[in-house]
């Protein structure tokens, strides 16, 4: 176990610059709008500051941030105020012959939250299911089920190329 010290501004800036895009994309999947996403991103990095954890590698650092961001979003979404607001901000189902990134993103946002982290880690970050299972502390079979169910929900919006994944 490494020495645990509060991080300096320089430490945080360097880590932030390495991983802000990853954390932001994941948080956006949950929070669905820029402002709540920014809250979640900031909270995630503030938790990193408070944690003082020493990472074994850049990958370890990234994995910690992904899991923390995911948990942060789920906690933020639990608040009653947030749940009330969400009712009005749910993406509307639309019919489009050729889905644009916007439409695909809307489909991702509309997925149940339990699928989102695994989906993002598998398809965007390229993590194997076993690694996702280890990170999220879930059985590998659960992760594979979540991915299969998410794919089924997305299939109307994905092209043939993405169906093959």
């Amino acid at each position, binding site marked *: 176990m490494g020495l645990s010290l*509060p*991080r*300096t*501004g320089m430490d945080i800036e360097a880590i932030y610059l390495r991983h*802000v895009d990853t954390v932001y994309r994941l948080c956006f999947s949950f929070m669905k709008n820029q402002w709540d996403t*920014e809250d979640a*991103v900031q909270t995630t990095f503030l938790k990193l500051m408070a944690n003082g954890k020493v990472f074994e590698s850049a990958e370890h650092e990234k994995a910690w941030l992904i899991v923390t961001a995911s948990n942060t979003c789920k906690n933020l979404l639990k608040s009653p105020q947030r749940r009330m607001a969400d009712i009005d901000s749910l993406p509307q189902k639309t019919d489009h012959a050729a889905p644009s*990134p916007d439409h695909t993103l809307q489909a991702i946002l509309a997925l149940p939250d339990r699928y989102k982290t695994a989906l993002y880690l598998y398809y*965007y970050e390229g993590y194997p299911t076993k690694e996702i299972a280890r990170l999220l502390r879930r059985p590998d079979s659960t992760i594979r089920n979540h991915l299969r169910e998410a794919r089924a929900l997305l299939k109307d919006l994905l092209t043939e190329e993405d169906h093959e*994944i």
Partner: protein
Amino acid sequence: MKYKQLMAAWDSANPSQADKDRMLNTITQHIAQPKLRFQPRRALALALALVLVLGATAFALSEGGLINWFGKKVTDNMPIPIDDEEVLATIQARAQQAKALIEQAPEDELWIAEIWEKTQIVSAPSRSFATPEALAAHLASADLAFPAHLPPGYSYDSGGISAYLSKNTAETGLLPLPDQQTEYGFPIKKYRLTTDYAADIDHWYAKFIDDKGNVLSLTCFRDSHSTQFSFNTSASGEHEVLTIPAMSEALYIRNEDSRFEHSLNFRQTGLPRLFIYQWYSPRETPDVHFDPNSYDSLVYQFESNALGKDSLLEIANSLQ
């Protein structure tokens, strides 16, 4: 590339550079030490007129690569008195909570959150200005300079001042307001300022942004020439001691790991000594304290993620 439709969807949600800068700015304001690379003996009033005040409870500072105004390596002799992770986490959590609360402070009020023994978070009274011309005029009325030259393509984003506590305000201009009890276990003491505090400028800042989201940040604060400064540098960066007319020291630092790659720091010393009071003091009683400090210098920090040394120097040379 496989999965390109899903990847394109997530990519379409990426934050802009301006969004990233804004988030990072918010995050760094939570850091329990002055946001700037300086390590002055007092906290600074920063862009949101928030100051994080640490007394005996100091936080860890950078572990290496520190240099002084003259580019000489110095050691970090600040102690790291907190070795209890739980205490540290509590203080940092409370700092976040307090910051969120005192961000709501009106500009003409002083709010002091005593979040831990000898540790306070203070919203210094402030005033923002809608245009750089208005800010420059206000600074000129207090004999403080503002650059006449600003780089083309950059638009004014925000700017303002925070105030020090003058003797007049300390003695006659503080109207106590009811304390606010918070759900987090610490109170916030509040005062309204009834004097024209905005003339008592302790610190000013201005932020400019171009159409690509590049940022130019200008800050200046009062200090004493005896303050021991150190600046963080990176192994891949560079620094250069410079000369700026009317300034006693100037140091340019390029640091790719920093939010602002280019940083021009300079200091004007030998100014008429000004005795002012702190809004805060690392004492046990959470009250406004009147510890006089004397200031005889102005410290400037001009930074940008895109404008290099020459551009920053040009701005610095246009101070008037």
